[in-house]
């Protein structure tokens, strides 16, 4: 059976090391993100042109694009 809690002066582990202070985990943040997870479609093609929606949700179109696609900004992730 996995050890439930293991607490040492310089290390904390819980649930068989599922949570381990020696590791770095991710959490969702609204600002100061390290990276972003893209959660939906971020490109569209119309009229021979391309719209790319960047992780902030801004559109980047080439000259031919005439569609109305609106993508979604990525989710901010902090590695702690």
């Amino acid at each position, binding site marked *: 059976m996995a050890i439930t809690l293991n607490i040492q002066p310089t290390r904390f582990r*819980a*649930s068989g090391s*599922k949570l381990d202070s020696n590791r770095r*985990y*991710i959490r969702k943040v609204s600002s100061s993100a*390290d990276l972003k997870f*893209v959660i939906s479609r971020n490109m569209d093609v119309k009229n021979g042109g391309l719209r790319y929606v*960047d*992780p902030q949700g801004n559109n980047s179109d080439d000259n031919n694009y005439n569609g109305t696609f609106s993508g979604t900004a*990525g989710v901010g992730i902090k590695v702690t």
Partner: protein
Amino acid sequence: MAVRLFARGSDGVVCIADASTSESTFQDYVSNPYKNIDNINFHSAFDYMSLAAQFTTSITFSARAASSTTQSVNKGKGSVTIQLPEQGTQRHQLGTHGLGYTPFATATRGNANRQVTPTFQLQKNGAAIRLVNVEMDSNKIYVYESWVTYTNALAATTQTFNCWVFRNPE
């Protein structure tokens, strides 16, 4: 926010949540984590991703010349020569993670707002375009380049990638 750590000896369940939560609500978090997921900082019923490797690598993408491929096609009694696009791919190594399985990985170019999203348009010049994807196998992380040129060329460019490699949730 102060948090409370609760460990139940009978079955090994561990839960961390807001310490100001009432006892009855906290015990509901402990026993029913899925319906309370928004309120829980940690629960042993869930699996968590952790960072396995992080590295920064600069890659120089070569210049890609305008297409020199042509084709002669009949037009009336004569013929005309038209230019055809050229394309290619190249895999560039970003780093080694050594996990022994294919993990999730992603990369930014300096900060989170310059994330390398799938099929990221790195460069464009007229109808010439260079797209990149972050790829991974059981040992390494790569950036996979796909390019197409037509009447315009693509200049060489050096990009610095900040790579994040995650263990499978465990």
